[in-house]
């Protein structure tokens, strides 16, 4: 093999004579201006995203029973009230339980569907994709009402599995979409190679296919968890008496007691979501998301 000398290297390392390049000098200020504007736009977007969280934190830590700015002090009284409330604790654990079941169901079903769509040579696959994504187009409150009516017709009441099914319905599209995105660039020859080397279809799936589509599946699973944990409109109709999820409990609470407990509950929810992402990063690694 012959080596190729990096011919352009001297140009990159050589000092630039600015006096000899007036055009470059003239262009420098607009570039700096552009960079400043770019930075400002990024800061503005970040501020837009983080301001509601900052307000929630201020509300949660402010001792007054209403939103006040500037805050008059720092207190943990709303966190104490939140953690002392049996209703909130029950709702928090119940939401986690529902979100965990939903994540498993949506991930298994969504990822399987995506694989079938991408690989199955199914007739009308575009229509199938559109159908799989349709829960996102229908207002979720109507999905909740329709499911509620279905359960009433079936005379099954409002069981836990019914709530999980409702959440799964609205979270499957996220898993399908993210898994399909990865499968789109998937090199089928890798699977063929594995099978040529004697791997069974099952082994090929677990040792070749799954690791390669993992970023998409994982991204979908995280979406599913967060969407389920924060799900309000579908839960509104499907929660059973005495088994309310966190968003429903918050909604009921704020109709009668609009105090900092709402802020404390929101901060805890944000921290929980963050911890889930962190735990996933530690266990399965999120760097692979970069591929998405």
């Amino acid at each position: 093999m012959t080596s190729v000398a990096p011919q352009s290297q001297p140009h990159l390392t050589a000092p630039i004579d600015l006096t000899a390049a007036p055009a470059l000098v003239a262009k420098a200020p607009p570039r700096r201006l552009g960079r400043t504007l770019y930075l400002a736009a990024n800061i503005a977007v970040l501020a837009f995203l983080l301001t509601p969280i900052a307000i929630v934190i201020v509300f949660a830590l402010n001792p007054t029973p209403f939103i006040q700015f500037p805050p008059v002090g720092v207190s943990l009284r709303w966190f104490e009230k939140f953690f002392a409330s049996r209703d909130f604790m029950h709702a928090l654990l119940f939401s986690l339980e529902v979100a965990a079941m939903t994540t498993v169901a949506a991930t298994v079903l969504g990822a399987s569907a995506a694989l079938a769509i991408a690989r199955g040579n199914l007739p009308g696959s575009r229509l199938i994709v559109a159908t799989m994504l349709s829960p996102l187009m229908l207002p979720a409150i109507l999905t909740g009402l329709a499911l509620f009516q279905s359960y009433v017709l079936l005379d099954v009441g409002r069981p836990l599995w019914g709530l999980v099914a409702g959440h799964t319905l609205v979270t499957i599209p996220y898993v399908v979409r993210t898994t399909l995105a990865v499968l789109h660039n998937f090199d089928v020859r890798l699977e063929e190679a594995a099978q040529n080397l004697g791997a069974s279809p099952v082994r090929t799936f677990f040792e070749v296919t799954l690791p390669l589509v993992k970023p998409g599946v994982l991204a979908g699973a995280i979406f599913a968890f967060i969407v389920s944990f924060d799900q309000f409109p579908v839960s509104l109709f499907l929660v059973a008496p005495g088994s309310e999820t966190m968003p429903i409990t918050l909604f009921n609470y704020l109709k009668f007691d609009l105090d900092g407990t709402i802020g404390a509950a929101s901060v805890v929810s944000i921290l929980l979501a963050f911890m889930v992402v962190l735990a996933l990063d530690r266990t399965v690694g999120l760097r692979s998301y970069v591929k998405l």
Partner: protein
Amino acid sequence: MTASSHRFPLSRRRLLTGAASLGAGILAAPYVARADEPVLNITGWGGKWGDVMKAEIGPAFESEFKCKLKTDTALPFLPKLQASSRSAPVYDVLHTNSNEQWAAVEMGLVEPKIDPKLVPNIADVYPYAVSDKIVGVCIFTSAIGLGMRTDKGYGSVTSWKDYWDAKFNGARGGYVIPANSLGQAFVMMCGTLYGKGQTDLDAAYAALEKLKPIKLVDFTGAMEKLILSGEAGIGILHDSGIYRYDGQNQPVDFVTPSEGVLSLEQVLSITPGSKVKELANAYINYMLRPNVQKRLAETVWYSPANKQVKLDARYDAKLLTTPEKVGKLIQVDWKWYNAQKDEIDSRVNRIFRA
């Protein structure tokens, strides 16, 4: 066949059947265990009402009547009742404010009246609780008047018309009328104050127009906070929304306007298709018992509908506990209002959007 399969003659089919039976058994167990225990499905509020119902009132009822009380506190109740079968409704007793009860009765979802023979405590309620403005029976009421700050030097406020005073411009709190029954009741009050009566909508719209600038909120809880934080100096509010801060050194007070207070009723009604009507009537009778009324009234500052209730002095001084005080209540014709609601919603949205 291997030796191990002789020792464990478990085929895949048997395993799946067994697992399915076990799963079905686990899922059905709670229902089987309670198969002979009647269940009363009701609606109810959250907050302190929900707390005391869950901790004391509900368990005492369950114990006395040997039943299970299932309370749905997740709004909205009417769409769920609408979606369920008329012959097997999702609720046996519907607890809402009066406006929703009228919507429910118009759709045939609840029975218009309660039979006093089946609910003997109805004999002790104030006339307003079973008036022609009420579906079912009213068990409590709140007075809708004006909540205001006492530390802003506004001077004396005695009339609803003071709410229009220019000194409250920018400090006036009101409701998103289509979404809030206090706001809706206030529309009728505007017709009474500036026109020929509750149904004089033109006069009401003209009066509402003059309220701008005004800060609008959806929920009464938000109005409380608006006043507590000082963001609003005056706002339409029910008395319990102010009295609940009694003894907490908050610079707020409730004003009973000289023209009278609007009635915000807590109403119970029974669904026609309920399979446990006897229990439903027993529940309503129980909720009208003096001791139950007293406990709830003193927890959430609602005025009891039962005349026989004797509240502690602190509550008795403020709540509507005598015929004279009750005489100040103005009941809203919700049947009429609901029939005009679409038109009113559209018009008030235009007024406050501009």
